[in-house]
């Protein structure tokens, strides 16, 4: 085992991303899906930080983008929680497969 390098970070990020995609595609609870989406965003953020640190540490662009991603994740979470709360008020459920009033 050598020192922790770029590959380690990339493997962790890839696993996180795959888990996130799996959660989004399989879970039907809206909150769980949101967790999966956060995992996807954070996996990408980890990639940015790692590529920045090991690729071009003199520039900070990847790190700065990560701050944007964190802001975005917060905005998305606020929006979806407001929507899910409304769904819960009118339907008493947070399962996305039960929210289906428009099928032909």
């Amino acid at each position, binding site marked *: 085992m050598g020192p922790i390098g770029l590959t380690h970070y990339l493997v962790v990020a890839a696993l996180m991303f795959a888990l996130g995609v799996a959660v989004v595609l399989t879970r039907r609870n809206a909150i769980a899906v949101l967790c999966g989406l956060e995992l996807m965003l954070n996996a*990408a953020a980890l990639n940015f930080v790692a590529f920045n640190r090991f690729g071009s540490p003199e520039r900070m662009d990847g790190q700065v983008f990560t701050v944007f991603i964190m802001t*975005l994740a917060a905005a998305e979470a606020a929006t979806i929680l407001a929507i899910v709360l409304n769904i819960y008020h009118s339907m008493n459920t947070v399962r996305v497969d039960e929210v289906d009033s428009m099928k032909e």
Partner: protein
Amino acid sequence: MSDLSLAMPVILLTTGAIAVLLLFSKKREGANPYPPAVGAATAAAALVSLQITLGKLTSVAGAGSSTGLGGFMTVDRFGVAAATICLVATLLTALLATDWLKKADANNPEFIPVLLIAAAGMVVMTTTGNLVGMFLGIEIMSVSLYILSAFRRGNLRSIESGLKYFLAGAFASGLFLMGIALNYGVSGGFDMASLATASASGTMVSKVALILLLCGFAFKLSLAPFHQWAADVYEGAPTPVTGFMSTAVKVAGFTAFTRIVLALSGTGGSWLSGAMVWLALLTMIVGNLGALAQTSVKRMLAYSSIGHAGYLMMAPIVVLSYNAASPNLGVESRAIFLSTDAMIFYLAAYALTNLLAFGSLAFIETREGKGLDMDAIGGLRWRHPVAAVGLLIAMLSLAGVPPTAGFLGKFRLFGAVLDRASVTGETAFYALIAVAVLTSLVSLGYYLRVIMRMTMHEPEGEAPVLPPFSPAWRVLIAVLVVAIIVLGFAPSFLGGGVEGVMSFLRTGI
């Protein structure tokens, strides 16, 4: 050009949004006509500042684009043309929504600020030469649209639409972001040139990055097989919002996507075009056949907008087929010019047409308080002649019947692809043309059904007494009808808007 003047449209839009919030969010009693007026004025101001920027662009000899804010904004004619269409759509949506906002469950002044912020995101998306800027623009637009879709808080369909839009949109954002991350890893940068560098390297990671970017855009642009969310979202969202989503979002999305493809063209990214051809073919077929089966006008228009996305997808495919090794580079550049020019025209025509359709539908919905199934428009000619004329022209233009803007849009877009087919002789282009023409014929079926419903089902008994027309709304419908017909006769009205694409090519690659 100064950084400030490049960012001015975005600054104006956000300032307008904050102003509306500060001025009107306390007054919730009764209908308030001022927020839409301020919103429209803000969009108009942003339009003016965009045109001033364009004027400065053309006055600087030889410079087709201007870069500022550390490479974050790249303003060229291609982007300005697309941003102009987005802002016109914003302006019209604000005006068309005035009536609708008076409804009890929609009477919230926050509608206009969120709309303006979505427009700011679109301007960023279309006038950026940087993947960070593009991502942030997409997200500013998308998050605002999730809110707008779920705007009628007491209406289950509206909230459901917001939820479904969020789930599809956020998933797409995740894919898109990972694509940018991998591209950054290969090339070490965020600008469009970094895409070309990564693509030229031909590594596996760069290919995965491009596939992720393509999937992200396919979701956002509702290309089959990533389109399942679109029908429910478009049907459930408030009608003026559906109009906005199906027009401005498509304009901004296709412009951003084409910018990425422009950077890739001629750098060994052409392996991607196979996937894009399949996406386009499938989208045309699924959208148009799906629309045939619908009983709700709104849902039918949702599928129709999927079909139109399929036609539009042909333009990036032509751009990607640019062959840098060709002995005749003039022909290659001309193909890019023709296809992007046709795409912008098509988008402009489509935006005006769909806004007219949804503006008429929103009116019918507000006046009659019923849903928008085919029965709701039965005998419309006798009940609301103005709305019926609006819907009639919109359907003809969507179907591509001359002399409407929609016809000329299809003519130019299909022409550009046919031109490319005859130059390269590739079967993919002939297949695209054949399917595009056949599905256009199929689309006549469902567009004409709307016209038949409106004109041939005379209502029985006495016509219901309806609230009076608002004169402003009538003027608006008339302006849109005239614009669609004028655009069908005089394409030069918008012509030459995208010569800057050529200079973008020179600077971007």
